[in-house]
């Protein structure tokens, strides 16, 4: 990842310019920046404002509304757990509690060492295989607290590539919450 402010700006600009869909809006530009950088740095918000010829306030107002945007650099891995009603009745809560405990977190968020983001998703779209999770965007169904912890360890030990590329990114939710 680029660390200099100018580098970040250049990347954001490129993402905005090359966004894949025909109609460019503030929202589509924000999604493009987040997809490219993994989050929305201040430089990214500023570039979106310039591109759309509007104020940073306006851009920020939209960015802050959608919970899939994040404003700090992402952790190395992302683990998502569905807490939607199907997964709830099929046992999502023990999975969540187990993961929170293992990660030393009290709520969804990043571990202090920046290794893992735990996200709660309202529905990963694979309710037929509830309870469902994803590890670096790889979907996994029929989970249990044990399987969840095993999956987490596998991630942390580097068995799976961090931020699986396009082949691995077959998920109901690429966004962060």
């Amino acid at each position, binding site marked *: 990842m680029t660390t200099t402010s100018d580098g970040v700006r250049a990347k954001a600009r490129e993402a905005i310019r090359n966004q*894949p869909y025909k109609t460019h809006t*503030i929202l589509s530009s924000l999604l493009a920046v987040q997809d490219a950088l993994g989050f929305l740095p201040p430089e990214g918000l500023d570039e979106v404002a310039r591109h759309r010829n509007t104020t940073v306030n306006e851009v920020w107002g*939209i960015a802050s509304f*959608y*919970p899939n945007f994040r404003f700090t650099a992402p952790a190395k891995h992302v683990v998502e757990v569905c807490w939607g009603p199907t997964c*709830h*009745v099929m046992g999502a809560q023990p999975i969540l*509690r187990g993961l929170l405990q293992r990660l030393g977190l009290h709520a969804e968020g990043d571990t202090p060492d920046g290794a893992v983001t735990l996200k709660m998703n309202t529905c990963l779209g*694979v309710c037929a295989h509830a309870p469902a999770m994803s590890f670096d965007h790889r979907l996994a169904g029929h989970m249990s607290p044990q399987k969840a912890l095993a999956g987490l360890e596998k991630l942390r030990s580097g068995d799976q590539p961090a931020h699986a590329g396009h082949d691995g990114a077959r998920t109901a939710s690429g966004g962060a919450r």
Partner: protein
Amino acid sequence: MTDAYQPLRKRADGVWAGLHAKPWIRVSTGLQGMAAGAGEVLEALRAELSRQRVDATVSEVGTTGLCYAEPLVDVHVPGTARTLYHNVTPEQVARIVAEHVKAQRPIAEWAHATADGTLEGVPPRGELPMMKGQVRVALRNAGEIDPLSLEQYVARGGFEGLDKALSGMTREQVVQEVRDSGLRGRGGAAFSTGTKWSFLAGNKSPIKYILCNCEEGDPGAFNDKTILETDPFTLVEGCIIAGYATGASNGIVFIRHGHHEPIERTTRAIEACYEAGLLGKNILGTGFSYDMEVSLVGESYVAGEETALMEAVEGKRSMPRFRPPFPAAVGVWGKPSNINNIKTISYVPEIVRQGAKWFAGIGTERSKGTVIACLSGHIKYPGLLEVPCGITMRHLVEVMGGGEPSGKRIKFLQTGGPLGGMLPAAQLDMVLDFDEMSRAGAMFGSGGLIVCNEDTSIVDLTRVLLAFDQMESCGKCFPCRLGTSHLLEILERACDGRSRPTDLDLMDRVGRNMRAGSLCGHGQLGYNPVSSALKAFADEFKAQMSDAGPIPIPPFVGPRSTRRGAQMTGDTPTAQVYPEFVINLQPVTTASQQPTAAG
């Protein structure tokens, strides 16, 4: 037939015949399949085919609907029965390739069903409990074709409907056909599609939009995404027909960001149609021009509401607009617009191709055609079913879904998503009909049916639904913004055994205010889960809320933030700032129960 369609059809038929001339292996790699491990199976299959030097076509198809059987591998080898292997593991792949594909001996012990031909001891697919009784219209190609192949779609009758409309029907006739078919919206409000189209057709603006809604935020529903990842061309064809019928210039498919397969496949289907002259200028040489594109939105449930959707397409916060003006007058970018659900549009090609009479012959008096139900929860055969309206919920759940798998009693179904309701088991004989279900307080909504057995606490599940409604409230109007927070607090108290004597009354007052005073369906319907749960399980609620020893319900780990940045669980500030949320708003119209119906 137009001159332009003929060669396309001929090419498609050639491709189709070619596919059947050698081994063709279809693997369900929709979202559902991937969650069950289809990715690893596909990898193993490709490796095994090359290791054993077999010349076979491998297609990634979307989902077949038989989610319980995934990973599902469908093997067609000329001269043998086309066989569906269920719950396939990567380890099984080598033998399937060696015995079925190479030696032409299907493996009966691993087979779930045959799709063509017969195999000793293996049922035909149509006789599977989950398939028997299905009528597949919108899902007609599910699991049959490669979602990215225009030729395969056309070979199965694709674009015949569009060709028929463009070559032989006036715009008015198409609108009338859809109206006569009795098709009603499948996005929740069940409004007549033909009537809705006639509003847009009546507006003579040169730029008009058809919006196809795949926000699909309802947890428990996955049928819109399934259509887009399994058969995106049916949506694209339906949208072009809708454009022709209403005189629209542009179609927009609206999908939640992050749903990789539906987005990717829809985008590629649109591109393929441009290349084939099915989109763009002078479609099929008939002079009709129409453009389509994909638009993405961030995570927001309310973005599925039609006016919020228009805001999101314009790149803003997905907050609903005040109506009137209605979308058919002022819609996206200020232009006249029509919004339909993905399923609704996906019926259109077959309605035009086979005629209104055929479609209207399926279903009940007022609910025509089929519905796509998503079964999940405590059920033997979770998955996707397309069934004619008019069958009973009992048949759907107990026969087609196989009933509760562990022998426990089914307690209720959660239907219609987080703004829907609870249908107690005692009412399972209800016929699947939009009007009958909404009269019973259980909307059919988008088709999600979550089966809950006797171990499920109704208070607990109601709390989860309200946690969802509270988190997703866009915050634009206070009856919903505060009401959902307040209801959640009361339910939290109930679960913790801290209910106050006035809580039941308070819930009722808050709920009535939400219904009467909210701007959009989110707030207007947000009390539904509570009211329907209270109606069906009053005793359980009262016991939980009395101080005579409530049953403990473990604390709920929920997401941290709402859209307004407030703490969601525990003591939200609402209770302190607004101790009695009791402004007594009166209903504006008596029709407020069905607020999303118009437009």
